[in-house]
């Protein structure tokens, strides 16, 4: 889909970057290679960094600024659904961050490696599914809900969020 609003284009670019990163990780983990192999470990590190940004700035902005607009427009059920998915992703992200940090520090126990692999794949699937839903619901709705002035305000607010 193509979007005309600046805020949507920005969010869409971030969605694309998330999909690109996590589908690469999914592919790397499907190979059943060791998690501490240099390429996989580097990818996990990038995912951890990207995720920290995603679940704070991106999610917070959507929850505080965009979901209320969606709810006001009569799509509160979609806003609630996306909010619930944020909570599930945050919970998995916290588990992922802990385990990935241990891998990075070289203190990940052998038994924890399987848990890191599992939570990575879970996050990849949750993020892909969540992005698909936002691209189909949130962003198209915003195209209609906001005018040019509101778009400029939102884009500025997001840049400084």
């Amino acid at each position, binding site marked *: *889909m*193509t979007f005309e609003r600046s805020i949507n284009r920005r969010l869409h670019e971030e969605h694309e970057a998330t999909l690109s990163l996590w589908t690469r990780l999914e592919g790397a983990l499907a190979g059943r290679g060791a998690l501490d192999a240099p390429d996989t470990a580097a990818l996990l590190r990038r995912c951890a960094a990207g995720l920290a940004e995603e679940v704070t700035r991106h999610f917070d902005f959507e929850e505080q600024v965009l979901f209320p607009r969606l709810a006001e427009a009569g799509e509160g*059920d979609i806003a609630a659904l996306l909010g*619930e998915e944020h909570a*599930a992703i945050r919970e998995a992200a916290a588990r992922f961050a802990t385990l990935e940090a241990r891998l990075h520090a070289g203190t990940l126990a052998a038994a924890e490696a399987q848990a890191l692999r599992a939570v990575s794949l*879970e996050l990849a699937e949750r993020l*892909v599914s969540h992005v698909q839903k936002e691209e*189909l619901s949130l962003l*198209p709705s915003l*195209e209609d809900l906001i005018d040019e002035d509101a778009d400029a305000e939102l884009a500025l607010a997001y840049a400084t969020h």
Partner: protein
Amino acid sequence: MIPIPAGASARSRLLPFSVPFRYFGAAAAFHVLAWGALLAGAEAFADFGGGLGPVFAALHLITLGVLATAAVGASLQLLPIATRQPVRSVGAAKLIWWFMVPGTGLFALGAGLHAPRMMAPGAMLALGGLAVYGWLLAENLRRAQGLRVVILYGWAALGALALAAASGLALVARYEHGLDLDHGAFRAAHLVLAAYGFMGLLAMGLSQFLLPMFALAPAPAPRTARFALGLAAAGILLATVSLLLVPSRAGLAIAAALGLAAALAHVVSMERALARRMPRPLGPAFLLMRVSWACLIASLLLGGWIALGSAPARSELLFGVLLVPGWLLSFVLAVLQRIVPFLATVHAGGGTRPAPLVSALTPTGPLAAHRLLHLAALAGLIAAAATGATVLAQLAAATGLAAAAAFAVFFVHTLLRLREARLPAQPAGLRGRP
């Protein structure tokens, strides 16, 4: 019915869970009945020429029961996403089911029992449902914003639906009241309008945003999509005119060539988009999708050959197999196995546990069994149509019945998992107790 709480506001584009899933459930049930009817009438399959009986019933259980019912359910939920407009009336969206499902059942039963008097009320009910659907679709498209090309496909499909309904009504009137019309020409026009027209155009239109979503791929080029739509619409129109108004073999052959060009443009455009997808496997549903595209192209090649008058015996039956179970049924089943778990996760929220993953709602065993059995059944039907061997038709129908049962298991499994996900979490000590 498995009770699953659901709700959605009237203005939302997200329909209550029960709306799309009642159509998907009916489609899964009709799928089983269709193969069962074919098995019951398999000895008549090789000589099927459109007359009443179990094969006719099986054909309409597939077209009206599976394809149209699934298309109504899917488009009621998915078109509002593409058009950025909610469904005009949720009540009307539910009402369609109460017309279409009993109507299709009655129509197929009447056809199977050679009872036109039973078919007529069934056809009227089904047409009543399609009329309400047509109104909802038109209302949604009329106010649509967003994906222009999907909207154009929607209007074209709606036009084809109106003509398919009119030609179907004329055929029922011939059976019940002896209406004097060229049965062969009307039958062929009805098939073209319903299969290539309504279902085909709807499938091509929804593919413009559904397939890229499933595959994490960019959208296909809108210009190619519009070009394909223009070719397809011209081909369908020319075929209808050449069958009903100005009988012409050349017209039919040109129509098939236009349809073939449209199909090739569509498939190439889709494959190009899929080639640029994120580095993620497409998933097994795309095997069925690609088989369906191959059958679409093969049906148009064979259709052109038939139009030229030089095709071998049994070509018309083979054409029907490639078109209905080959192209449309394979495509719809491929799409359903992706959107059913996806939409289920949309409605899985509200419990105290995190929403389940799409993969957790997708039982791989039944789907793998379905895929294998469906493809075997399709190959068997093609062989049976080509050779006229009754035993092949019986084997294919039995295999198709098993495939349909596996698909029904997938559907029920997804509903049960969804129900589990929506139940409040129990304390650990209580889990597993009755």
